[in-house]
């Protein structure tokens, strides 16, 4: 076979040698191709992992899903601007199942996966359960919607972009007094006791200072179900003029529907917790007139908010709730802190405390040295199936 030659340039190559060389190259190429096809893929830039932990399923999933989506939108916005320290952010979401155990397991899983911080939880009980575990692992937690005052004023690796619910309780208590309500019933979900207790205590104190009186106190567990009829009976028996419901949107909607069905309309006063579209979807017209004390309003005219709402609707197909907005702000301020630490978890706590004033989406805010924020309180109601500000408040 050596008498067959291939002329290449000025060199004659025996065709056997050319074929041999080509065979080796071809096989090598095939192996490389096969490896590329079959093996694990190549890695691009090493992303910075953020963990989102919230209830993605269950009766309170509206908070978690909105929060996750808001965080997702913020991550995409940061990546569009080049990421953090030239590294993209990647959001890992984990369902905390709306339970303490679930919260701990979800956060542990996220930290093991390499998350530099936890965005969550969306409810105070899960945050209180999981924070010690996260802090012990050296992690940082920043919550969009955990409003319990039990976490205020502490340097505990915990940050939040929502104020504690005590302000809401005070505002609502004073509002109730201004509305001429003298006797109210308190109904609260013990599954989120830390949130429920602090809000109810603040309301009770402010209402009492304004001359009001608590005539009944109904506690229930959303996971085990509530007997709304019994609540209404208790309120009627005690002469309550209104019900302050500290519960999720689904539960408040059910309460409102029950009142409608019994043709009993008592004013419902709520904190921010049930202030989601789900209350509209489930409650229908029954939820008209509910008053919420919140730091979030859908009638926010800020360009930043309008732009955020537009982008959220375009991205996910439905309007954002306060959970999405707060989650967006939480990721934004976290990204700012990560820029200082080069995308690493080390030094993230002090970096967060030093982020300073933030433009925000809902309103400007700044994390204090304890990781808390102070924000204005609004009173919002539902009118004709839409959220609207309470006139004059």
């Amino acid at each position, binding site marked *: 076979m050596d008498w067959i030659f291939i002329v290449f340039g000025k060199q004659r190559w025996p065709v056997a040698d050319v074929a*041999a060389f080509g*065979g080796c190259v071809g096989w090598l190429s095939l192996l490389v191709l096969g490896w590329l096809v079959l093996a694990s893929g190549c890695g691009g830039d090493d992303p910075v992992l953020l963990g989102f932990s919230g209830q993605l399923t269950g009766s309170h999933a509206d908070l978690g899903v909105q929060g996750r989506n808001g965080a997702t939108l913020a991550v*995409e916005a940061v990546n569009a601007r080049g990421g953090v320290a030239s590294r993209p952010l990647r959001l890992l*979401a984990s*369902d905390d199942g709306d339970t303490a155990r679930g919260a701990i397991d979800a956060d542990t899983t996220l930290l093991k996966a390499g998350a530099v911080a936890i965005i969550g939880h969306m409810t105070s009980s899960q945050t209180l359960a999981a924070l010690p575990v996260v802090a012990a692992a050296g992690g940082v937690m920043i919550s969009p919607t955990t409003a319990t005052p039990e976490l205020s004023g502490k340097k505990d690796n915990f940050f939040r972009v929502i104020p504690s619910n005590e302000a809401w309780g005070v505002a609502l208590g004073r509002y109730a007094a201004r509305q001429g309500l003298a006797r109210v019933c308190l109904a609260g979900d013990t599954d989120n006791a830390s949130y429920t207790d602090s809000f109810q205590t603040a309301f009770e104190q402010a209402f009492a200072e304004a001359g009001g009186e608590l005539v009944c106190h109904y506690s229930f567990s959303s996971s085990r179900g509530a007997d709304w009829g019994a609540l209404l009976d208790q309120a009627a028996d005690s002469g309550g003029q209104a019900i302050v419901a500290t519960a999720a949107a689904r539960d408040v909607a059910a309460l409102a529907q029950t009142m409608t069905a019994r043709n009993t309309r008592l004013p419902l006063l709520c904190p921010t917790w049930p202030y989601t579209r789900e209350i509209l979807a489930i409650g229908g017209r*029954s939820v008209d007139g509910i008053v919420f004390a919140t730091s979030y309003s859908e009638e926010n005219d800020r360009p930043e908010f309008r732009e955020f709402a537009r982008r959220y609707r375009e991205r996910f197909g439905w309007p954002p709730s306060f959970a999405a907005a707060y989650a967006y702000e939480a990721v934004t301020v976290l990204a700012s802190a990560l820029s200082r630490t080069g995308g690493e978890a080390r030094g993230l706590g002090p970096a967060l405390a030093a982020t300073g004033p933030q433009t925000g989406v809902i309103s400007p805010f700044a994390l204090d040295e304890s990781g808390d924020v102070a924000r204005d309180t609004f009173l919002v109601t539902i009118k004709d199936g839409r959220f609207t500000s309470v006139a004059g408040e």
Partner: protein
Amino acid sequence: MRPTPISRILSRSLLVRLVAPGLLLLALMAAAMISMHWRTMERDNTRLAATLAAFVATALDEAFHILETFVGRVAPDGGPVRPEALSDLLAVSPAFRRLLWITADGTVARAVPSGLQGAAFPLDFDNRQDGRLLLSRPLPSPIDGRLVVYLGVRAATGGILAGELDLAGLGERLTQLAPLAGGRIVACDAYGNLIVHPDPRRVAEQTNIGDTPLFAAAKAGKGHLVYQSGGRLWLGTVGVVDQCGWFVLPTVPVSDLVAPALYTVAVLFVFMAGAFVLASAQLRKALRQQVEEPLARFAASLPEGSGGGEGGSGAFAELCVFEGAFEDMARGLVRNERLFRSSFEQAAVGMAHVSPDGQWLLVNERLCQLVGCSRQELLGHSLVEAIVPQDMAAVEARLQESLAGRLETFAREGRCIRPDGVSVQVNLTVSLVRGDMGRPDYFVFVVEDVTERRAAEEALRQSLEDKELLLREVHHRVKNNLQVISSLFFLQAEATDNAEARLVLLESRTRIASMALVHEGLYRTGDFGRIDVADYVSRLAGQLENSLGRSGGVRCKLGLEPIFLSIEKAAPLGLVLNELITNAIKHAYGPGVSGEVQVAVRLAGGVMRVTVGDQGQGLPPGFSIEGTESLGMQLVANLTRQLQGEVRAENAGGALFTLTFPV
């Protein structure tokens, strides 16, 4: 078993020239198969996505159709809707989980199963041209939280018959329609909110896939995309559900696509590898038995020191041995050639190689000088032209004898006539060199210039001849002079009356005569360095018989051997013999008594033994040669000492004198 070097060469050659091209073809075939299979799968999956999207569209269409069919029947007159009507409709509509009748003002008038009744329907339908209403966003059902979509159709009265479509059931039907082993079917709305996913948990968590590459490709209008997810490569295809903007996205792992082609290639590779191994093993076995082992035996038979040490380079053990041997051989050849050249060219004699037909093949410089021709001139001519014709005939005859095998080497003198006419006497030594088959190859001529030597020899011979002549003349004259002296002594003895003086004179005369005989012997034989002892003794004995013995009847009996003696020893020996024989003749026998005197001369072991004896009266008691006052005996003693010999006198049936001396 460790492969031998030649086996490795074979394996490598097979690998490079057979396997590698085969691998190239296999790689090309694999690439072609993968490409074809890929295109087929891509096309099939695209069709599948379109089919599934059409199925979803059909399912939605059927759901709408059911609503459209019954919307006029549930509230035909615009009156209240009977719950039984909705229940009946729900019973025949397994796709729906709930049916609602919504009044024109948006209030839920009836709901089966019950719920939201009397409440405002919280959702806004997107108005459609054809009267069909759809809320594309999936949301958890208010009944049990399962993901649902609401469909609605508007009645003529303005009311809306709405149904809660069970997306989980839709997903199960999709999966049953197209079970993709290893793959998955995903469906989402126009915003990426999951509707169907193999992992129900992801649907339950209302996961959004709007940030995934496949969704982006679907929104961009692409039909398929290869993307990476979860550390694997996937081929995703896009099916668009008409009228609602949903996407059905079947995805298949790329490894599943290429695996069939790779499997075929792997099988072919295994076959090819097996064939290569089998062929290689058989070839190596044959090579080992028929080539390597014989070569190894031959390599082992080579002298020690051949080759490159322990196995040479490792890869060519036998060849290294051969190479070393060949190198040694080449070095030896070069060395021998150099030796030959130096010896041939620098020889002091002319040397040449001549072909059997007489042509000069190779000549050295000395030969050229001898014959007076240049190398080129000589090589262009034949032998005949260089040697004198008279000598050539003899040389040619000898050459022919050599060619015939009767003579291998001969030497002969001849003459060469140089171009300048000078004749050169040369000594030719010719030997025949035969080839491997014994055939004559060429003659080796060694030509020695002996001109000067011959001239010197001639001069020497002439000088020698002259000297011989001179010596002859000298010895002749000495002999004559001694004879004259002897004659004078004889005359003086005749002239004197003193008997004692006369005796002395006669004794001296015989002595001188014996010396003259020596010289006579020298010039007569022509050998001036030595004398024939037998001839001299016989003449001396004859002379003494004549002068002393014949009258008394004493005769000499001789026992002589052919012995030659130098003149330095012959002269004293002659004098001793003269004394002893004279003494014997005179005194061995009484006056007038005849007898013999035995004279013997022997040479043995470099010692000459001369005996003179008789059977006469013997020696007197107490006789001693040294002790006697006789001049003759004194001469005998002295001359014996001169000869460095010994003389003994004894009685042995008479007197016996024995003289021994080294020669």
